[in-house]
């Protein structure tokens, strides 16, 4: 019936009608349909096909004239498709569906605009969604413990050292538990590790929590299988029982339902499993341990440890005496109590204990809400990041608003005509809203994809001390928020052009299309300039924030740590006491331990490329433990001295980490278990406790042993790179007690550390196939992990600032390009009158410079007010650091110059004749 390809025939005769291919398509379609019917009509009248085709085509007449006539009649610029009419009674939903379909079609028609807007918004939404996902999972989601707001951590304090978060002694814990009325209950735990020897496969180290029987019920945690410990089992000499984590249950027992009653081999001891605890039962444990002044157990080793085994503490007050502080204490407040009433009561109790027992001298109490302990270190950085990413989203919105305004101008005529024809404002607004809804939803969808990708990187990069960081994912709440943000953005910035256009009268709008410099045009120009200025200002704030953090990170990386981590490999082992005896009556001559160490070190030293190898108690950024101490002859004075960090090091330690001995001598092989006991102090100790004296030759005393000082070494930043070195004393490893058999080996080598790691594992396996080597990594990585939070916040803020700068540049470019197009006529006349190109370029550059300068000034002022929130994240840099503030000026200046240069070039290339003819 339809005969030939009418569209093709029409298209062949009308090559190009308007500037918009999509619009051309519509015209061709309409004409073709006409010809189809004409053709049918001619056939009806009895014409043969060829005649019918010829006559129908004849209607196109002079095709050149037709194209020109159509072009002059068709509206300039892209014409929006009209909202379709659908049969049947119009309902609101019907209309909405139409509006959305229509909106989608409009966006497909202007792909350039749509893709720019969607990409920009998606970037903003993606980044915001990713960060919010972290905030949501970490801070906002319900915690697995019942009544977290009633849970507290009961710390001990030490007035001598000024430390406020110390663990408790077992006797203190028992006394407090009996005397307190402000608490419903208490529980205590001690972080430890055990070597798990499975029936098959390599042995591994597991984080283990030694708990009092009341701890797990105190937290409100219920086992998935089996039961928890009873009070009867929690006594010295009680049975070897364990609760295992859901993870271990899965990994070792494939979730076997009959796991209760079976055994696992921990540190060579068969231990009966009495139950399985749900996956998040170790909630908050890492943060409590990390907050503790010492006794942090596995939290110092691997920041991402998850507790796999819970063992009954079975505390013996004859072993865990009152001046030993291994126990972290949690308490649940009684219904009537508050943290402050509990603090008051505990202060009284601790004062009584202090009066009663000499070893409680200077010890007090600090009751802290558990929620604060768990979240305090991350709350600040996370909210800062959320605020920063919010700024990025804001900039993205500003850019889209800019795009929409520019588009609003080209669509002004459409809106004006439709308004004049009686389209109600409601309808127009809804139309624009629908169009922007489509835009927003597309952005949100793409944004979620971006977020998912970003989140993976984020979680991998995230500092491990963020609670629940492994549980971060995009969930319903986050999705809803992303959609809401997108919707708001779309609605707010989308409707503005509709309202703006509506304000104008038809005549003015139609004329504005033709004449430049109309009031409406200028108004819009001003609005867009304001948007660009605010965009630049926001970017300035972010760039300065990032700059401060970069400088802080640079300071941290250049801090003199005292030791040299480069080219050093770290590895850890734990010698089980069943085979490596360290009986106190033999102290410190633990033959089997020393034999193992000496033999392993001998083998390590023989490896190619190895310069030095040492055994230590703790690696250089592990704070280790501290103890009270005295200088022989100054016992009275020493009562108020703070505790000193005790470093157990092999004689080759100083050489291995290149720690300089400033006076006296280093340790040597002759400082063995049976030789006279010696020690080396750090410079801080020498300065604070031996002012104006030579400490070398004096004796210090702790652990019941006098140790002659033989040397002074430089300070090592053992509390972390951002903190000052505390007083520290080094003792030969061979003359120190075994800390439960835990040892660290450090190897300095010019050979690749991966090779050394392999050789080290092999050497340990040869010496003792049942030993697990763990924590094996370059020491530089250990150091880097100790500043992971700072680095994380910095990296994120830097990438946000980068995105902000790019978006601001796009904004400047967009506004100026548009201005150049608008001023084509004027620029054309100027050039025709002989204005040099330089002059015309200058005009555009000046406009760009003005926008940038105003944005810079506002941004600098804003940054001055806002960067204060970063203070706690900065090391060695003030929040108003001059260089960071000064550096932003040339940086944004150059970016703005580049963004301005392109439109300026375009202005010069304007052909004066053409520009004036178009005008």
């Amino acid at each position: 019936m339809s005969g030939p390809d009418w569209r093709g025939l029409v298209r062949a005769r009308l090559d190009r009608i308007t500037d918009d291919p999509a619009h051309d398509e519509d015209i061709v379609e309409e004409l073709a349909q006409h010809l189809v019917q004409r053709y049918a009509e001619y056939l009806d009248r009895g014409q043969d096909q060829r005649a019918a085709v010829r006559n129908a085509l004849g209607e196109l007449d002079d095709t050149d004239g037709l194209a020109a006539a159509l072009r002059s009649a068709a509206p300039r610029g892209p014409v929006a498709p009209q909202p379709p009419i659908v049969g049947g009674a119009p309902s609101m939903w019907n209309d909405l569906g139409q509006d959305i379909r229509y909106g989608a079609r409009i966006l497909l028609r202007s792909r350039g605009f749509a893709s720019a807007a969607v990409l920009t918004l998606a970037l903003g939404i993606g980044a915001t969604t990713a960060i919010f996902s972290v905030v949501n999972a970490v801070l906002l989601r319900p915690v697995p413990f019942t009544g977290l707001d009633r849970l507290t951590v009961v710390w001990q304090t030490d007035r001598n050292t000024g430390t406020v978060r110390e663990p408790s002694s077992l006797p203190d814990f028992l006394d407090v538990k009996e005397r307190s009325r402000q608490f419903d209950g208490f529980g205590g735990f001690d972080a430890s590790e055990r070597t798990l020897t499975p029936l098959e496969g390599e042995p591994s180290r597991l984080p283990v929590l030694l708990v009092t029987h009341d701890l797990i019920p105190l937290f409100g945690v219920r086992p998935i299988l089996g039961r928890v410990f009873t009070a009867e089992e929690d006594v010295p000499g009680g049975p070897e029982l364990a609760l295992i984590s859901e993870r271990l249950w899965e990994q070792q027992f494939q979730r076997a339902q009959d796991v209760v009653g079976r055994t696992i081999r921990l540190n060579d001891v068969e231990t009966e499993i009495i139950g399985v605890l749900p996956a998040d039962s170790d909630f908050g444990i890492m943060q409590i341990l990390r907050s503790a002044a010492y006794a942090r157990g596995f939290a110092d080793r691997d920041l991402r440890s998850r507790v796999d085994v819970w063992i009954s503490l079975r505390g013996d007050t004859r072993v865990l005496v009152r001046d030993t502080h291994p126990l972290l204490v949690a308490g649940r407040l009684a219904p009537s109590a508050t943290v402050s009433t509990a603090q008051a009561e505990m202060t009284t109790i601790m004062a009584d204990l202090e009066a009663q027992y000499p070893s409680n001298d200077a010890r007090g109490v600090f009751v802290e809400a558990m929620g604060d302990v768990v979240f305090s270190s991350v709350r600040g950085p996370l909210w800062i990041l959320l605020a920063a990413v919010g700024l990025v989203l804001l900039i993205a919105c500003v850019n889209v608003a800019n795009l929409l305004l520019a588009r609003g101008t080209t669509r002004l005529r459409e809106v004006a005509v439709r308004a004049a024809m009686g389209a109600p404002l409601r309808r127009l607004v809804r139309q624009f809203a629908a169009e922007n809804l489509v835009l927003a939803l597309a952005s949100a969808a793409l944004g979620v994809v971006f977020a998912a990708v970003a989140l993976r990187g984020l979680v991998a990069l995230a500092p491990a001390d963020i609670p629940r960081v492994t549980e971060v994912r995009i969930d319903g709440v986050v999705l809803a928020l992303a959609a809401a943000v997108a919707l708001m953005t779309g609605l707010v910035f989308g409707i503005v052009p509709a309202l703006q256009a509506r304000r104008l009268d038809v005549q003015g709008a139609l004329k504005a299309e033709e004449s430049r410099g109309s009031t409406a045009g200028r108004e819009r120009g001003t609005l867009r300039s304001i948007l660009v200025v605010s965009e630049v200002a926001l970017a300035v704030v972010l760039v300065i924030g990032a700059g401060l953090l970069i400088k802080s990170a640079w300071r941290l990386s250049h801090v003199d740590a005292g030791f040299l981590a480069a080219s050093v490999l770290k590895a850890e082992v734990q010698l089980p006491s069943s085979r490596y005896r360290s009986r106190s009556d033999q102290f410190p001559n633990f033959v089997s331990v020393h034999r193992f160490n000496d033999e392993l070190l001998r083998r390590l030293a023989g490896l190619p490329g190895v310069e030095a190898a040492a055994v230590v108690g703790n690696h250089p950024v592990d704070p280790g433990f501290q103890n009270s101490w005295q200088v022989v002859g100054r016992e009275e004075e020493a009562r108020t001295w703070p505790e000193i960090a005790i470093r157990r090091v092999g004689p080759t330690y100083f050489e291995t980490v290149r720690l300089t001995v400033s006076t006296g001598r280093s340790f040597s092989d002759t400082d063995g278990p049976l030789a006279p006991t010696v020690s080396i102090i750090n410079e801080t100790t020498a300065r604070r406790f031996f002012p104006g004296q030579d400490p070398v030759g004096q004796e210090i005393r702790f652990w019941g042993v006098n140790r002659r000082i033989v040397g002074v070494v430089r300070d090592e930043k053992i509390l972390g790179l951002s903190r000052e070195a505390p007083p520290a004393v080094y003792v030969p490893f061979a003359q120190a007690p075994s800390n439960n058999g835990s040892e660290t080996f450090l190897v300095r080598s010019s050979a690749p550390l991966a090779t050394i790691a392999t050789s080290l594992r092999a050497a340990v396996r040869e010496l003792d196939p049942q030993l697990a080597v763990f924590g094996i990594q370059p020491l530089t990585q250990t150091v880097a992990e100790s500043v992971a939070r700072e680095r994380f916040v910095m990296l994120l803020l830097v990438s946000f600032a980068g995105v902000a700068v790019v978006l601001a540049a796009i904004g400047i470019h967009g506004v100026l390009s548009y201005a150049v197009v608008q001023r084509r006529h004027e620029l054309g006349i100027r050039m025709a009158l002989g204005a040099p190109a330089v002059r015309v370029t200058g005009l555009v550059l000046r406009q760009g410079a003005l926008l940038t300068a105003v944005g810079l000034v506002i941004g600098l002022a804003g940054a001055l007010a806002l960067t204060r929130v970063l203070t706690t994240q900065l090391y060695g840099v003030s929040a108003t650091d001059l260089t960071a503030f000064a550096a932003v000026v040339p940086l944004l200046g150059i970016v703005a110059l580049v963004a301005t240069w392109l439109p300026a070039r375009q202005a010069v290339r304007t052909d004066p004749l053409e520009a004036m003819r178009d005008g």
Partner: protein
Amino acid sequence: MKKGSAELLILSVIENGQRHGYEIARQIELRSRGAISFHVASLYPMLYRLEARGLIEGRWVEKAGQRRRRYYRLTTNGHVTLAAQRSLWREFFVGLNRVAGLRNA
């Protein structure tokens, strides 16, 4: 044809309902009994011009099972303009008649 007569014709045939381009051309041919005919080359530029002036409104209409078609209908402005044009043309005809005695020719 007098300037503006084509405009009057088009506005008139869509006065009582929307029609697509071919229908408009066909209606004019039928009502004038073949005396007046519009070709594509003259009809569509005229339609677009009328649309740009806000007198008529073209919409793509989709009906189930059919290709979308562009329908034109009068806008409020169009109705007003048509009424004004009618009275103008009426006066013109009366004058023409008086001068040239067309009616009895």
